[in-house]
């Protein structure tokens, strides 16, 4: 079975129609836990992007040799290998950011979104298609993390990328860890509202 979408459609699908955070509501843990600043969101987004692309390509390459009954453990071990790679790389070259993200980089291994894309896409499709799909999903996650990080950093500490832009702190509450749930919930509701009013206007 081959997909009938071209590479651009595969990438935008991950960012818009099937955005992992806002649409599929998968892999929410880092979105709530550490997206207090744009930089944190960006770093973890890049790590997930890396793992997603490389795991998709790997599985797509070896899909003919995987026995269907052991496919889930194979996916898990493939992801674990790539997570170890990015984990050690980040620890070596970006120790400060790595210390802030703590356990969340290692936890990418249990992210539902990556396993799901391997199961639904990479194990059936060609290598280039899997690459583009992985890129789209990874970028979708990255965009979601950066958007949440942007909102939390701007409203919580009045800054972007650590630079003070507002001069005051509108909602200090937003950078507290437990506010992550509120921010994500409110943003989801907001996007639903926009979508609903957009659909209503389309009907009229």
């Amino acid at each position: 079975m081959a997909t009938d979408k071209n590479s651009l459609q595969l990438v935008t699908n991950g960012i818009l129609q099937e955005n992992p955070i806002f649409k599929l509501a998968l892999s929410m843990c880092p979105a709530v836990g550490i997206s207090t600043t744009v930089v944190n969101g960006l770093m973890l987004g890049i790590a997930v992007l890396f793992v997603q692309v490389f795991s998709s390509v790997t599985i797509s390459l070896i899909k003919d040799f995987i026995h269907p009954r052991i496919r889930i453990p194979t996916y898990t071990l493939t992801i674990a290998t790539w997570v170890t790679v990015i984990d050690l790389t980040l620890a070596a070259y970006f120790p400060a950011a790595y210390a802030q993200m703590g356990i969340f980089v290692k936890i990418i291994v249990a992210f539902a979104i990556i396993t799901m894309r391997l199961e639904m896409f990479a194990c059936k499709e060609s290598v280039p298609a899997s690459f583009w799909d992985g890129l789209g999903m990874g970028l979708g996650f990255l965009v979601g993390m950066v958007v949440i990080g942007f909102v939390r950093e701007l409203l919580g500490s009045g800054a972007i990328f650590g630079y003070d832009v507002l001069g005051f702190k509108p909602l200090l509450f937003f950078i507290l860890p437990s506010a992550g749930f509120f921010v994500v919930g409110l943003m989801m509701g907001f996007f639903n509202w926009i979508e609903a009013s957009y659909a209503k206007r389309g009907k009229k």
Partner: protein
Amino acid sequence: MMIKNRLNLAVWFWAAISALVLCSPAWGAGIVASTSFGEDNEIIVEFRTPVEVAIAGEAQRYRVFEETDPDILLPVTEVEVADDGTRATLRFADPLNTTSAHVVNAQGIGGLESTTFTVSKSYLGYLLTVLISALLIKNFVFTKYLGLCVFFGTSKRKETAKGMGVVFTIVVVVAVSMSWVLYQYVLKPFHLDYLQIVVFIGLTSLTVQAVDTVLRKVNPVLFKSFGVFLVLVIANCVVIAVPLLMASNEYNYFETLMLSLGAGGGFLLALYLMSSVRERVELARVPEPFKGLPIAFIVAGQFAMAFLGFSGLQLF
């Protein structure tokens, strides 16, 4: 079958705990009968035989340090000895970190040139602290924000919440116990620390597969109601977070067991609380765009704030 297994585990566990409790008084050999922490900045020492009050009351005779930091001496400001000489209270300038063991070296007390003894909290209390900490104070869902996909996915009904929580607890206890053995006896001695992620997640999938196979054959009825949750366990970040915590804290087996029980129980608690609320929210008039997941997130946020109230809780 499963219930019998858990019963066995419980019996074995209590036997081990009581053995530990029975053994602990044997520590304070020599002139010291028992030691304990008093107030924030106090160590209370009881002597077997009365000591000379004047000598025991001299603060400079004592050298006290935490077992993990032998270089940092904690200055003793004052020593109060009971009139009969069987009990001394050492006071310090700053509050002590009572979670770690303290070593006390006393010179010339009770006619001995030097005696050394350690002060620590009762081990049982410490184990319970690890359990309560993983269960409430550092609840994996509400204060560490882990396992959220599964948490929101299975907290719609109380029935599914209970099933998921129980299955998760069993898998996490078994998988983390195996991870501990492998970490202590294979990964650490051979310096294979960088394989942690691969090994821990591999063991978890193995456990899930094994429980799946065994349960399917042994108890098909139970499998029918709990089988669906088994697949979800592997997508839960907590199953990888617990062994990683175990490895970074260098827990021994009992501490690991407590941590995994606390993590599983905490997840069950969080699911049950959440499902109770969500069953009611469905009847409430929620604004259209917030129906479903968004309102669930906001409810979870309120739970997270409530759980902040547990921070600083210290029972032992």
